[in-house]
């Protein structure tokens, strides 16, 4: 269906009140055509459908020194198609400093979920950009200090007035240095001065939680400074970026927006033939497939390197291939060109069955939602089939040429992470151990024997700086066993933690197979004789092992020791947290209040005990009071 037919179809479906159908066609349209005109069309139709779609509202402020108005519809259309209803507010032209410094400015009034600070080198450092040749070493250093100081002041002021995420563009290099080729040999170098500022930005970001650097210099360099800029538009309308590059800047913003909104892929499922290697293993055999350092096998090794990088980022790798299992396994295990080994893959479906069914099974096996899967396949028919049958799965559009496969994976915003915890780095290993636990479960006769044989030890700790990033990460991405699904930034948690009414606990679980790391969080608030559980969540990989009961027994005991007579907690129903629905009723809580799908539960601490299961060793790393 061509683009104008699709537009008509979308309007027909909207007229017929078929919101889901219209949304599918809109996603299809945007997927086929990321042009500015399509972006306008898509935004206007998504706005009509907004009340009927389950979109995540998100507010973004852009503080800028140049024209970004034409980027807004492109960004919103991309966000809409990913399920995000994005409101974008632009600062007045070149008024970023006032807006950041003034606590009463409209920036803070809007209370954005995130802000982008996009300032060009020539705007913040006109002396370094235009007049560099005329400056002596001292003047250059003074300029570097001034610019660094300005960024520092802005970030501090922003943190004083707001707890939201701040993404700062670093400074791009001029296409040709003022000193020409001398710049690389000179003691006082324009390139070095700008790099110095960028280095200082990294330090500033590392000193504040929720502050990130967007490497604008690298983005411009990736596509080439001369190609990136359009001097005509800069001089006419203060738009420095050429029309052809607008979507590239959008994509860079999306690389932050996806992890910020939790719209990320947790696992990537890859095909084998003509994807991980060239050729068909069942026909070409071990000696015939293309895979190795030289052309044509090199392109496939590059793809494998990109996947290995994702593996080290904590993204789970899985295989889904139509093949004879023996042929495929032989290549995976023994081919000398394979950089990925069977142990890198946590789940495998090598059979002749339907791929959408296989993907469903993989998601179930990994205990994650189908919408956390990304799918890579060279075959456009397989991709289209998944898009239609499992629209929640993120399907990566592979280019026609294998040499470009690796880049398609690396560019994808769904694999971005804002921070990496130790848990992320060991994720796949954890899943391997999970498989061993499953095996144990099948071989022990009773449930209690299984619990005992796990030899679980849990360690509960009060909030501290070392667990803060992981705690915030868990509140932002845990969907299934999460009683209230409240999302918190590191900053917010730290502030809660410093108030005497609030307590925040992390939960670490070890068992005979190893350390699962920090896998649970509880946040409580005590007022008078009532202690309310604000947040209680656990990573799904420790669910069903009675760890949740042990955690609750601790919370009840801690509350009692601190003088509470009642332990209360809301269960707020979402589309995903059904696994936690019966948690309070199973532990003797009574319904106190009902509000639509949401229920407030209460446990009388003077009458009811929550016992820690005898097979769990519980240790608290703090003062019980």
């Amino acid at each position, binding site marked *: 269906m061509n683009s104008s037919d699709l537009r008509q179809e979308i309007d027909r479906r909207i007229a017929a009140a078929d919101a889901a159908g219209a949304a599918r066609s809109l996603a299809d349209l945007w997927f086929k055509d990321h042009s500015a005109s399509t972006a306008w069309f898509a935004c206007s139709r998504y706005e009509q459908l907004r009340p009927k779609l389950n979109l995540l509202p998100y507010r973004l402020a852009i503080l800028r020194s140049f024209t970004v108005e034409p980027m807004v*519809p492109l960004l919103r259309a991309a966000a809409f198609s990913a399920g995000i209803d994005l409101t974008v507010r632009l600062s007045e032209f070149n008024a970023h400093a006032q807006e950041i410094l003034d606590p009463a400015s409209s920036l803070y009034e809007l209370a954005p979920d995130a802000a982008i600070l996009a300032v060009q080198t020539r705007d913040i450092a006109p002396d370094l950009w235009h007049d560099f040749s005329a400056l002596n070493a001292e003047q250059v250093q003074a300029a570097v200090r001034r610019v660094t100081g300005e960024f520092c002041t802005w970030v501090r002021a922003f943190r004083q007035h707001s707890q939201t995420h701040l993404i700062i563009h670093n400074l791009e290099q001029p296409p040709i240095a003022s000193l020409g080729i001398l710049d690389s040999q000179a003691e006082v170098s324009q390139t070095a001065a700008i790099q110095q500022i960028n280095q200082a930005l990294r330090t500033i970001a590392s000193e504040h939680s929720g502050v990130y650097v967007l490497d604008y210099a690298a983005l411009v360099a990736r596509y080439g400074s001369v190609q990136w800029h359009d001097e005509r538009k800069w001089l006419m309308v203060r738009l420095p970026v050429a*029309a052809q590059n607008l979507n590239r800047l959008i994509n860079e913003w999306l690389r932050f927006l996806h992890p910020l909104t939790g719209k990320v892929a947790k696992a990537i499922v890859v095909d084998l033939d003509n994807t991980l290697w060239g050729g068909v293993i069942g026909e070409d055999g071990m000696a015939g497939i293309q895979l190795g350092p030289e052309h044509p096998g090199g392109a496939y090794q590059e793809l494998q390197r990109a996947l290995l990088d994702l593996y080290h980022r904590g993204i789970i790798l899985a295989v889904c291939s139509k093949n004879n299992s023996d042929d495929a396994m032989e290549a995976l295990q023994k081919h000398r060109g394979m950089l990925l080994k069977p142990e890198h893959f946590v789940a495998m479906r090598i059979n002749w069955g339907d791929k959408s069914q296989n993907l469903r099974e993989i998601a179930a096996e990994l205990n994650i939602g189908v919408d956390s899967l990304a799918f890579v396949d060279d075959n456009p028919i397989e991709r289209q089939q998944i898009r239609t049958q499992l629209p929640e799965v993120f399907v990566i559009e592979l280019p026609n040429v294998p040499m470009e496969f690796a880049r398609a994976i690396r560019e994808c915003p769904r694999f971005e992470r804002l921070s990496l915890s130790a848990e992320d780095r060991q994720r796949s290993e954890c899943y391997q151990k999970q498989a061993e636990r499953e095996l144990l479960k099948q071989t022990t006769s009773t449930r209690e024997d299984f619990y005992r044989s796990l030899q679980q030890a849990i360690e509960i700790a009060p909030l501290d700086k070392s667990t803060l990033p992981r705690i915030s990460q868990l509140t932002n991405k845990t969907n299934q066993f999460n009683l209230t699904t409240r999302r918190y930034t590191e900053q917010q948690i730290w502030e809660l933690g410093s108030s005497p009414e609030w307590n925040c606990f992390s939960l670490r679980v070890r068992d005979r197979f190893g350390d699962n790391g920090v896998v649970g969080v509880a946040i409580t608030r005590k007022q008078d004789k009532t202690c309310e559980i604000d947040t209680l969540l656990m990573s799904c990989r420790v669910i069903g092992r009675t760890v949740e009961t042990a955690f609750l027994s601790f919370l009840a005991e801690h509350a009692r020791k601190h003088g509470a007579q009642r332990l209360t907690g809301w269960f707020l129903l979402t589309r995903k947290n059904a696994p936690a629905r019966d948690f309070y009723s199973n532990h003797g809580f009574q319904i106190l209040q009902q509000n639509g799908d949401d229920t407030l539960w209460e446990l009388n601490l003077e009458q009811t005990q929550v016992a820690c299961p005898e097979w769990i060793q519980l240790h608290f790393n703090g003062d019980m009071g």
Partner: protein
Amino acid sequence: MSSQLFERVRGIAADILELSPNQITLQSSSENVQTWDSVRHLNLILAFEQEFGLQLDPEEIDQMNNIEGITSILEQKLNHHG
């Protein structure tokens, strides 16, 4: 003037000005279309540059205040390239 080019221009202008294609004529301009303000004008120019893979010069942009002007500039530019 090629009618095929006009249809493409019409489709793009309709999206950005939030009208249906048949509401766009050669005479449509920033004077008589309410949504055609300076922000939309910049968006139109960028959309044409994106769609046709070209860069427009300031003098050309000055002549693109109505659909007829847009179509004839694009036609010149495309023929020149082809």
